């Protein structure tokens, strides 16, 4: 019973944050552009999320006749499933997670790799040149950034001596890993943006060039699932940054641990949206160049340095 409550809580928190982000992002973007944003529906426009959801439900859910129907329908589900599964290993509090896996980080990396399938299959099944280009870009981008996303986390794993998120949080009682693992944090953060294909790295979507990229042909709630999946991805990456580098649920005891975790997560979501508000989208080859020629060496250097220092200390 207690177990089911935790599962319900995790799903409720992650989904409601992701849905709330629809409103938060629009309000924050408009604040940074000296506008007001949606403020008509309900108090401060909070019910905008509800209005958008109702609108999406009543939209025609159209599957193109030229599409590969089964794969087309499956693709948005894969995205949601892989991201929601990863939330199972995130510790929201000392005893508030669905499953404390001893290979939590590997589980997260594996699931985020599986998430690529959703975009590639969705773009391919749409049978549309723009979708296909978007899907190819997504696969290249995510494979590139997957490499040093994993490498950048290995420093944290070495310092905590464990792949379990819980053990990593406990290992940060003496100090957050952001200080010894600063380069790891930078690389992971950039890789995380690319992994969730958020602006400025939204090259798979690139509405200026590719209509809407891999989800050009999607409509109704299938599009809605890609849409919410993107926000879930932001929430997930923010939660993982908070857990691995900023002490997760650790914090002064006047607030319960879950709140510390949520505050840290929301702060990184805020940074994600700030990046969207301020930076232009790089060209495709610039993104690849940044990945292979700058971030990969930095991640490797960080790995070597961390290992050397740890051996030296022991």
């Amino acid at each position, binding site marked *: 019973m207690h177990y089911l409550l935790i599962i319900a809580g995790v799903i409720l928190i992650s989904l409601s944050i992701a849905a709330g982000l629809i409103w938060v992002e629009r309000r924050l973007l*408009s*604040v*940074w*552009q*000296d*506008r*007001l944003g949606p403020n008509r529906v309900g108090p401060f426009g909070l019910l905008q999320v509800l209005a958008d959801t109702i609108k999406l439900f009543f939209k025609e859910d159209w599957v193109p006749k030229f599409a590969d129907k089964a794969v087309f329908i499956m693709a948005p589900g894969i995205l949601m499933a892989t991201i929601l599964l990863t939330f199972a290993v995130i510790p929201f509090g000392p005893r508030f997670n669905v499953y404390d896996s001893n290979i939590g980080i590997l589980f997260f990396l594996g699931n985020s790799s599986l998430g690529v399938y959703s975009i590639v299959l969705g773009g391919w099944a749409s049978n549309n040149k723009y979708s296909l280009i978007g899907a190819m870009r997504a696969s290249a981008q995510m494979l590139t950034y997957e490499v040093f996303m994993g490498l950048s986390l290995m420093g944290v794993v070495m310092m905590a001596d464990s792949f379990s998120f819980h053990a990593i949080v406990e290992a940060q009682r003496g100090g957050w890993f952001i200080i010894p693992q600063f380069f790891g944090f930078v690389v992971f953060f950039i890789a995380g943006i690319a992994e969730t294909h958020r602006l400025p790295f939204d090259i798979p979507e690139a509405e200026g060039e590719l209509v809407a990229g891999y989800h050009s042909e999607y409509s109704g709630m299938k599009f809605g699932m890609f849409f919410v999946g993107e926000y879930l991805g932001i929430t997930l990456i923010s939660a993982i940054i908070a857990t691995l580098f900023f002490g997760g649920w650790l914090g002064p005891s006047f607030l319960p641990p879950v709140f510390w975790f949520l505050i840290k997560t929301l702060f990184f979501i805020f940074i994600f949206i*700030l*990046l969207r*508000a*301020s*930076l232009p989208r790089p060209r495709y080859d610039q993104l690849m160049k940044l990945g292979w020629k700058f971030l990969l060496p930095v991640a490797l250097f960080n790995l070597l340095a961390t290992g050397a220092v740890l051996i030296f200390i022991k």
Partner: protein
Amino acid sequence: MISILRTIWLTFLHIFHKSETIEYPEEKPYLPPRYRGRIVLTRDNEGKERCVACNLCAAACPVDCISLEATEDEDGRRYPSFFRINFSRCIFCGFCEEACPTYAIQLIPDFELAEYDRQNMVYEKEHLLINGEGKYHDYNFYRNAGVDMGVKEKGEGDNEEKPVDLNDLMP
């Protein structure tokens, strides 16, 4: 690298800026006096219609939304028997106002022209005619144009021919 961080920081500082948005239905925007909105027909300072039904506005109109018909009153003064503007066609270019020789037709700062029924977008003369002088006060076409200033008689200017005697048959 530094420029990227600077961009992010400058964008962040916009959180302390005031919003530019005017929340329209509650808060009305300022419209300058020469704003080109709804079209009206004005009267002169004697309270008579300025319009002399010359059709120049209808000729100038690029979307042909003005239609009118000229008639004369008992004094021989021309006025439109009907004057109709189809606002569903009007593009508010203001050419009619520029073409008008008597300042009769004017565009005013009012853009709230929405209607539930499309037919209501067609304004007749009784809807267009206002009881004021609009933007040009104390202007009366008949007091300014064709008035003898005491300088020269008809046909006495340079390059000006003598007036034709209508009762003469000679060439």
